[in-house]
């Protein structure tokens, strides 16, 4: 596999997620304008922050005039789970020059990570692992471009766009398609069940912090079971 093929592999893998992300991008654009954020700033936020849930929260908190430090803190909490993705891909990117690492870190969203990770971990043969960063760049760039277009549509066309077609269901469905085939051991199954259950129980916690705690609980249970088996 060469770099170009790896890039297109990542790009193709993220396509189904774009169907689910697009409605969110449109709604974000609408919410941002309703919060009194001028259109250029609303658009710029999709490049500067580039994080779906965090942008929603930022727009809403700006809208209600929340203190800036609290707003920044909330955005940090919402994005805390991305540190897990960072740790997960770090060994794969270790050999790259710093500009590559920074670019891929900037593009490291839930969706880009999810789309790329089965291809990064499974079949990490010599030729593929040498171009693994191109897979991640493909999924990251695809999501970035889709998010910009969706945000722009929300900002320009606004609430007339139909955003309740149920297309957002594509997100959980694609994550299911990615996760289920990866469950190849009892430890992995236990990690999934734990993370899912904790996420449901803690769903009411603010700033999506429940997701982060749930993921940590899943990691802990999975690792504990591996240790017992070993």
């Amino acid at each position, binding site marked *: 596999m060469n770099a170009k093929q790896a890039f297109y592999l990542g790009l193709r893998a993220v396509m*189904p997620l774009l169907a689910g992300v697009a409605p969110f991008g449109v709604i974000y654009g609408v919410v941002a304008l309703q919060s009194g954020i001028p259109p250029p*700033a609303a658009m*710029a936020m999709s490049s*500067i*922050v580039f994080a779906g849930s*965090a942008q929603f929260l*930022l727009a809403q908190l*700006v809208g209600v005039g929340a203190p*800036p430090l609290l707003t*920044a803190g909330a*955005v*940090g909490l919402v*994005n805390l*789970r*991305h*540190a897990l*993705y*960072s*740790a*997960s891909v*770090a*060994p794969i*990117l*270790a050999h790259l020059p710093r500009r590559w*690492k920074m670019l891929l*870190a900037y593009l490291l969203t*839930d969706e880009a990570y*999810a789309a790329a990770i*089965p291809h990064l*971990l499974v079949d990490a043969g010599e030729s593929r692992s040498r171009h693994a960063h191109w897979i991640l760049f493909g999924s990251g760039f695809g999501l970035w471009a889709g998010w910009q277009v969706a945000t722009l549509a929300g900002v320009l066309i606004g609430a007339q766009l139909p955003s309740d077609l*149920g297309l957002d*269901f594509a*997100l*959980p*469905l694609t*994550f*299911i*398609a*990615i*996760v*289920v*085939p*990866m*469950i190849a051991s009892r430890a*992995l199954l236990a*990690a*999934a*069940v734990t*993370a*899912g259950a904790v*996420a*449901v129980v803690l769903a009411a916690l603010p700033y999506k912090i429940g997701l982060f705690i*749930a*993921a*940590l*609980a*899943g*990691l802990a249970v*999975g*690792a504990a079971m591996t240790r017992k088996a070993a």
Partner: protein
Amino acid sequence: MNLWVLMLVCGLLTFAIRYSFIAAEGHYQPPPWFRRLLPFVPIAALTALVAPELLLMQGELVLGSGNLRLWAGLAAIVVAAVWRNTLLTIGSGFLALFLLQRLAG
């Protein structure tokens, strides 16, 4: 604080979180237990994203027949487990949701 400054701070913070471990790789020796956690990141993090989408309706746990996304999601899980095909899984999930909506409607 100016809106643009706030956005910049939030952007830098987000980037710093995503860059953290990628930047640190090679500059520190993580303990062995840390390495053991990493294989579970995709499954734990993504399941944490999916489970509330399927099990909760407006923040309430709904396990009955009224929660159509749960049953469509379970159908997709079965398809994913048997055929391991992304598009087939997404397609059958949407098809199941559509059929359930027709049945319920």
